Structure formats: structure tokens, C-alpha cells
């Protein structure tokens, strides 16, 4: 199958998907569970891919994703609340310090940018650390960020530990798909560029990468900042989707959820992360909801089913995956049309590990 044909088919598929979503939105109620799952799935796909860029493609085991999402979510909220609403939202802080509102798209980009700035600063001391220490340090910084954003003294800007709300948000599922899709495409394009090759070299062997003239500090910083930029964007999208936002929700448990998605999808597979994000959201928001609700069959109280049990089930799933399916759904392979085509037609295509080239 020629490259051109493949691109045409991929574009057609994406166009078809968006069209289906468009039609569904005409016919299904806006509150349908399907849209909830799709929106959240798109957001989680983006943050999972951004985490995979670090953990899967650069070999940096970082656990700061929730912290950078928080920065993004707050940047978005703070910068877009309409001036007229500010007195209301910031009622404990005299209407707050900021008295302007930006266009949502500009705010989303700034959300990513500020997360990137945070990442740059945190990266300076932290990126020298090796694997486990890096994980602990980034996790710690994420918690510190959360504490700072809840700090009363910053209330005029962040509203302290109170909710940010009343900011504008796009309701259509199409917006989330397009925004997240563009971001993921950019990440994939970077991974397929000469920079992506440098990241993979660092992941495979730091000493050899340096011997090939790759500046470790510089490239790790790029990966960390870019990853955090997109985590910030996904935070902004999440804020938008939820219509209100509070620092307390960006706990490390959120990072673990994202890590779970990355691991299930396959560390080093972009399409794996995307598929697994939707699977995860479908399961946790929809199919496994019943695990968290007290249930009676007749007068029989079904045991175990109560708030929090879902988390237990997820913990068990993680353990099963880590023990038996270490590769996740995709391993480091990518899902692609040409791949399926070759499977169906029985033609052999050489498998190349390490993140192939298909969007």
C-alpha cells in the first residue's frame, strides 16, 4: 500500500469519525453518557500520550502529570472567567486581582505554556536524577504545586481552595476531539522527527546517546517541557469539560490513573495510549460504576459493592497487567491501517519496535 493511499485512507477515517460524532450530537441528548465518555476519553488520551512521550519514548520515569494538568486547568480558569462574574467567583477575595478575560483558545495555549514554564524550572534540579528518584521528585513537586495553588495568600489569583467556575466552555464533543487530536498529532510528528530519534536513543542507552553527540540535559529538558505543555493543555480541556475546577482534584491518584492508561496501552505506543484511555474511561465512568454503589437484589445487599470498591478493582487490574501482560495492549507497536491491511492480505511487513510511523 502506497504512502499516499494510506494518508488518504487515514484522512477519510478521521473525517468519517468526526462526521459520525457530528450526527450523533444532532440526535442524542447532550447529557448522554456517550458524550461524557468521549470527551473525557479524548482529554485522557492526550495526557496519556504526553506522559508516554516521557516514560515510553525518552525513558524518563516522571510522575508529575497531575501537577502540570493543575497548572493548565487553573491558567485556563483564571484567565477566562468573564469580568462580570469575577466578583461572584472570587467573593472571598474582593473579586480577585485579574480583571480581564481572554479568548478560550488563547487561554488554552497559555495554559500549556505556563505548565511548560513550571516544567522548565522543576526540570533544572530534577532531571539529573535517575529513574526512581526522578519519579519521587516529580511526584513531590506535583504535590507542592497543588499546595501552592490552594494557598490563601494567592487567593486573589487562584481563589485559594475555592472552586473556579463560570468560565466559558465548548460543549461539543467535536471540539475535544479536534483539540486533542491536533495535540497528539504534533507529539507524533515530533517523535518521528530527528528529535524523537534522539529521545529514543536516550531511552535505549544514555551513555551511548551522549557518545553520539546528544546533549542529555538539553534533550531531557525538551521532552519534559513539551510533555508538560501538553499535560497543561489537557488540564485546560479538563477544566472546560468539568465547568468548574478545584486544586484538590489533582491528587497523585490522578497521575496513577494516567500511568495505568499508559501501561495498559503499552509503554512506547501512542495508539496504545489512545485506545487504552477510552477503554479506561468507558470502564471507570460507565461500565464499572455499579461497583461503587450499594446494590440490593430484592432485600439482599450485594457484598463489597460500595463507594471506593472501583479503586480496588483497578488496583487488581494493574497487578494483573504488571504480572502477566507487561507489554500492555500494543507493546511498543502502533496500530495502523497499513498494519491491518498487511495482516488481512497476509503480506509480511517487518516489525520495527520503538514507536513506528503511523498517525
Amino acid at each position, binding site marked *: 500500500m502506497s504512502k499516499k493511499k494510506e494518508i488518504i485512507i487515514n484522512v477519510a477515517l478521521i473525517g468519517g469519525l468526526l462526521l459520525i460524532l457530528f450526527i450523533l450530537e444532532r440526535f442524542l441528548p447532550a447529557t448522554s453518557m456517550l458524550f461524557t465518555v468521549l470527551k473525557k476519553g479524548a482529554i485522557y488520551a492526550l495526557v496519556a500520550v504526553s506522559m508516554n512521550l516521557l516514560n515510553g519514548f525518552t525513558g524518563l520515569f516522571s510522575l508529575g502529570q497531575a501537577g502540570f494538568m493543575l497548572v493548565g486547568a487553573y491558567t485556563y480558569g483564571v484567565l477566562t472567567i468573564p469580568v462580570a462574574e469575577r466578583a461572584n467567583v472570587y467573593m472571598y477575595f474582593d473579586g480577585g486581582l485579574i480583571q480581564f478575560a481572554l479568548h478560550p483558545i488563547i487561554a488554552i495555549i497559555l495554559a500549556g505554556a505556563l505548565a511548560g514554564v513550571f516544567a522548565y524550572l522543576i526540570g533544572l534540579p530534577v532531571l539529573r536524577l535517575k529513574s526512581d528518584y526522578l519519579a519521587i521528585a516529580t511526584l513531590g513537586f506535583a504535590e507542592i504545586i497543588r499546595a501552592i495553588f490552594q494557598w490563601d495568600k494567592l487567593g486573589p489569583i487562584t481563589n485559594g481552595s475555592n472552586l473556579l467556575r463560570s468560565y466559558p466552555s465548548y460543549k461539543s464533543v467535536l471540539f475535544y476531539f479536534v483539540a486533542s487530536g491536533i495535540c497528539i498529532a504534533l507529539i507524533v510528528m*515530533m517523535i518521528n522527527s530527528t528529535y524523537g530519534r534522539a529521545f529514543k536513543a536516550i531511552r535505549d542507552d544514555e*551513555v551511548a546517546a551522549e*557518545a*553520539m553527540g546528544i546533549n542529555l540535559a538539553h534533550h531531557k529538558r525538551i521532552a519534559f517541557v513539551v510533555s508538560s505543555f501538553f499535560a497543561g493543555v489537557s488540564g485546560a480541556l479538563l477544566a472546560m469539560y468539568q465547568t468548574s475546577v478545584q486544586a484538590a482534584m489533582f491528587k497523585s491518584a490522578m497521575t496513577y490513573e494516567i500511568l495505568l492508561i499508559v501501561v495498559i496501552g503499552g509503554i512506547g505506543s501512542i495508539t496504545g495510549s489512545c485506545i487504552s484511555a477510552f477503554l479506561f474511561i468507558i470502564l471507570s465512568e460507565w461500565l464499572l460504576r455499579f461497583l461503587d454503589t450499594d446494590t440490593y437484589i430484592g432485600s439482599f445487599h450485594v457484598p463489597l459493592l460500595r463507594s471506593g470498591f472501583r479503586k480496588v478493582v483497578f488496583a487488581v487490574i494493574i497487578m494483573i497487567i504488571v504480572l502477566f501482560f507487561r507489554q500492555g495492549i500494543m507493546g511498543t507497536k502502533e496500530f495502523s491501517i497499513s498494519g491491518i491491511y498487511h495482516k488481512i492480505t497476509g503480506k509480511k511487513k517487518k516489525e520495527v519496535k520503538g514507536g513506528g510511523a503511523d498517525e
Partner: protein
Amino acid sequence: MSENVLKIDHVTMQFGGVVAVDDLNLEVNRGEIVSLIGPNGAGKTTAFNVVTAVYPPTNGAVYFEGKRVVENHPRGKMKKLYNGGHADEYMKTIQPTPDKITKLGIARTFQNIRLFKSQTVFDNILIAEHMRRTSNLFTATLHLNGSEEAAMRKEADRLLHILELDDVRDELATSLPYGKQRRVEIARALATKPSLLLLDEPAAGMNPQETVELTSFIGRIRDDFHLTIFMIEHHMDLVMEISDRIYVLDFGKLISHGTPDVVQNDPKVISAYLGVQEDE
């Protein structure tokens, strides 16, 4: 013209109390093949690691093409631990990162092969082009550097062709037989376009047939790529055949140097090697 390409000047490398390299002085001249030999644990690899800036030396300096590229003197807690000489002769600290050394024109291979394990032979070699990029993150990500990218790939393919590795181009590098992997690692080092090539035991794990091939291969790349080669090797046949000069290390100290004939007949060298055999 016998200008020296590499000069190691009073280099001492101490790991805590262990002196791995002890006041090493040596020179490698342009176009030469110079070997560094010595029993296990003599400090040969450590000397390479100092030259390529993987470790900053405890004391001493390294010159490349007449320029001082590495320098250090005992500092901090090493001040107390250091028990070598020449400590007051090196006052500056020059500690580049290893990639800077590569960019200057020193490439190396590793004793325990370090190929990029998830990548094909082609991609292993392509990575060397990264350091010469003119694109930045944005132009590269948006694939606006099409002609540069094409030139990178062409260059990598050209090198594969010259080194007769075309047939394994798309194989996973680590799936190749050992001897081939060594050759790919040398090819990867050459892709950085070095003027000085450091080979750490290139014949390790090779059978006699492969070793013979390697011997001619090393001679050939020296001529074709206008290289100076500095090599650590245990296979004495190989060493004696292609070396212009040989340095011998034992317990971090230089015990002999000269042409293969001189070194071969040096009683100190013989006893150092015999001593090791008795230990084993």
C-alpha cells in the same frame, strides 16, 4: 608531520581510595594506530572514559588537536584522598559533557556493546546525524526540514554501503551476531565523522576468523576515513599486527611503551602478564 592528535597529561583517576589510572602520560599522533594493553582491571577503559569526559579525572589534563579539552585537580573530599603527584600543575577545571567531546571529533565504541537496542541498524547510524542538525524543535516537528532529513538518511545509507552493512540495514541491531554488532557499533561511531576513533576491545567475543577480518577492517577505515585510532585490545595477534605503537598499563601505571617489537620483549610486560596468569 607527527603532530599529536591526543595527549594525555599526568592523568590520575581515583575512585575514592581506588587509583584506577595513576599519572598516565601518552600521545597518539595523526594517522597512527596506537594500542593500549594491560591485564584486567589495569585501568584501560577508565582512561577512555576520562578522554571522552564520562568521568572527570581526579588530576591532569587531556589535549585534543593541541587544545586542552579536559582538565581537573583534586577538589573537595578528593583533596584529602588524593595521593598522586603533579597536583599543583593543573589549576583550571574543564569538564565538558561527553557529547561535546564527540562534537569535537572523538568517537568511541564500548567494551560491552551499547547499541540502541530497540532500533534498526539504519536508525542506530542515523542518530549520529542529529548533532549536525540545523533545524530546531519547531521546524523538525512540523517536518519543514525535509531536505535536511533526506540528506541525513542519504548520509546514513552511504555509510552503510561503504561499510558493507546494507544487507542488515533494517534488522534490529541487537538481533545480529556478535561480530556484526561490533561492526555496527564502529559504523555508528564513524557516522559522527570523527578524526580520532577510540575502540574498546573491538575483537572481544570474536572467533579467529572474525578477528582476522576485523584487523583488515580497522586498517581500511583508518585509511578511508583518514582516522587516528586509539585502541584497547586483548588479542595480541591483532595488536602486534596493526599497532604502530603500544602502551602497556598495569595497576593504573604505565609500565612500558614503544613499537610492538620493543613491548613484546620488555621483561616488565612479560611479568605483568605472567603475574596475571598465575592469579587466574
